[in-house]
């Protein structure tokens, strides 16, 4: 009983879309945080509801989305589908540049890339912070879904 449900509501500001991913936390990886409001959300006042994972795609599949290039590196998202349902989303193929480093009361800002997190067995359930990276996640996941014709 795992699925992704996307609700896109159109408002000029505020809560414009809802992405829901549910299932056991132990089986979910990166939480889908963002659709891309600039492209996915209409600017009018209507509300649309889209349910992804309706079973029109393959029953079981794994796909890695397109690698998104940024000035600092690369990002891709892996989508695992079982029984027509998305069961796992993970960030793929990132590398570490740095480890924790400390000075007295000041700290160098850690740069944690997914490889490190994976090596430590850490699964991220959600992201707090910037908007653009979550958009990249969504874009890449959508790319992976498209690759599976799973819309």
């Amino acid at each position, binding site marked *: *009983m795992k699925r992704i449900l996307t609700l896109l509501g159109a408002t000029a500001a505020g809560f414009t879309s809802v*992405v829901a991913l549910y299932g056991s936390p132990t089986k*979910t990886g990166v939480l889908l945080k963002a659709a891309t*409001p600039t492209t996915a959300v209409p600017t009018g006042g209507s509300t649309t509801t889209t349910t992804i994972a309706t079973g029109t795609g393959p029953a079981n599949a794994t796909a890695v989305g397109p690698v998104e290039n*940024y000035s600092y590196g690369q990002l891709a998202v892996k989508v695992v589908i079982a029984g027509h349902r998305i069961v796992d989303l993970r960030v793929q193929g990132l590398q570490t540049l740095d480890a924790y480093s400390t000075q007295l009361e000041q700290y160098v800002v850690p*740069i944690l890339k997914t490889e490190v997190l994976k090596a430590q067995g*850490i699964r991220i359930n959600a992201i*707090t*912070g*910037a908007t653009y990276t979550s958009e990249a996640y969504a874009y890449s996941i959508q790319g992976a879904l498209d690759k599976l014709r799973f819309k």
Partner: protein
Amino acid sequence: MGTVVSFLVDPGDLPDEHVDALLDAAAAELHRLDERFSTWKPNSELSRFRRGEVATPSALLDEVIARCEDARDVTQGFFDPWAMAGGFDPTGLVKGWAAQRALAVLAEGGVASALVNAGGDVCVTPGSSYDVGVQHPRERDALCAVVRVDSSAATSGTYERGEHLVNPFGGEVAAVSATVVGGDLALTDALATALAVGGHEVLSLLDDLAGLEAFYITPGGVLYKTAGMRLGVD
């Protein structure tokens, strides 16, 4: 521009239809609050209030105002919705407060556990624990911390698009990114905003508050944190 809200739900024994209905109800609650508290919609209660057209605020608006007053007191004025250009703007608190209300819909509906992420403001059901990555302010594909969240976490930063931080005291904004973990998300959200604006002064305040940990990153790339703040999980 808008905020994306994500739900991560462990439904436990609830049937699919029940979970769908709960998610619909949680989303409806968010839309309802957005209708009331949008600063972008001219006819929202908040917009009318800002124009002086609301003689008697609704119970919800009263609650938001009271929480803003509390947050302003706790932060010694570094979070001050009354100091915003254009008049009273509680947006820095309402997003987290609304997420908490949406979470309550799921919790009261009987899900085993749930996480709500309102544009980076995260809250989870009591008794559950989730690992939340904190976006690195400079490295787009990296995190700067992973925090274990059993109540709430919020990040405020000048690097985020559309986010405009104002120092009520007229000085510079101290941080490019500020994260607060713990407590009620409405307050956590406001505290993160205050920490981003006030930096060291606010961090000292937070160090003395039980149940809260925090860190912020300066434009020069230096991280300051409360004594109990851990930047990774084991």
